[in-house]
C-alpha cells in the first residue's frame, strides 16, 4: 500500500523548505513513513539544506524526536544543514526537556531560519 504524503517540499533559493501535513507526529507507523520521506530529501544531493517548518504541528512524541535525530545525522553525513522553525511553545518545551534544543538549530520563524543558512 503506498504511504500517505506526510510532507510538502518547496524550494527557496536551493533550500528545501518542508512543511508537515500531519498536525500530530505521534504514532510510530506514521513516523516511520514520514522518516522515509524526509530521508529521501536528505539524500537527494550532497550539501543538502533543509528547513523543517513546524507551523502546522501540534503534537510530537519521543519517536518523532528520534526520527529527527536520525535525519540530522543523515544530513550531516551529506555535509548539509538542517534547521527547524515555527515550533509552538508546547512542543518547544518537549525539545527543552530532552535538551534537544541544544542539538538542533531552532529559529522562531521560517524567514529567520532561511536567513541563517
Amino acid at each position, binding site marked *: 500500500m503506498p504511504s500517505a504524503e506526510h510532507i510538502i517540499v518547496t524550494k527557496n533559493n536551493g533550500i528545501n523548505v518542508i512543511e508537515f501535513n500531519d498536525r500530530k507526529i*505521534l*504514532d*510510530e*507507523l506514521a513516523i516511520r513513513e514520514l522518516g522515509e520521506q524526509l530521508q529521501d530529501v536528505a539524500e537527494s544531493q550532497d550539501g543538502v539544506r533543509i528547513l523543517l517548518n513546524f507551523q502546522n504541528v*501540534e*503534537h*510530537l*512524541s*519521543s*519517536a518523532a*524526536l*528520534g*526520527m529527527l*535525530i*536520525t535525519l540530522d*545525522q543523515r544530513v550531516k553525513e551529506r555535509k548539509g544543514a538542517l534547521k527547524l522553525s515555527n515550533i509552538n511553545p*508546547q512542543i518547544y518545551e*518537549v525539545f527543552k*526537556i*530532552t*535538551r*534537544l534544543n*541544544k*542539538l538542533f538549530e531552532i529559529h522562531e520563524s521560517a524567514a529567520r531560519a532561511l536567513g541563517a543558512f
Partner: protein
Amino acid sequence: MTQPDSEHIRDDRYRAIRVKSTLEDAKLPEMEILADVRRHRFCEEAEFAIKLALEEAMTNAVKHGNCNDASKQITVYFFVDDERAEIIVCDEGCGFEPGGVPDPTENDRLTLPNGRGIMLMRAYMDEVEYRCNGREVCLVKLNKR
C-alpha cells in the same frame, strides 16, 4: 491472560480496554480516554500531556514490554473525574527496572534516537509510577482548572 497485580484496579471506577499488542491497535484506547478528559474539562495543556504520555506508554508496552509479540495483549485501566485522570497501562512482558534506564539528556546520549519516552512521561504527568516489576505503569494528571 496475565491478571493485573495492582489491587486497586479491581476498584469499579476503572474502565478497562484490552487491545492486541500492535502499534496500530495501541492507538485505540486514546479516543475513549481523551473523550472523558474533555468531558471533565481538563485544560488544553493537560490534554496535550495525557495524549503524549499515553502514546509513550503504549509504544513502550508494544515494543519493550511485549517485545513486538502480537499474540500478547495490552490492558489499559482508566478513570477520569473532575479532579484527576488516572491511566494504568499493563503489558504481558517480563518487566524491567525503571531506575536502570539511562538519562537521555547526558551529553553522550543526546544524539541517540531512542530512550526519551519515560522521561517525557515523567515531565508531563503529575505522577508516574511503575509497578509489578515494570509491567504496569500508572500515569496521573491532576485537573488544575
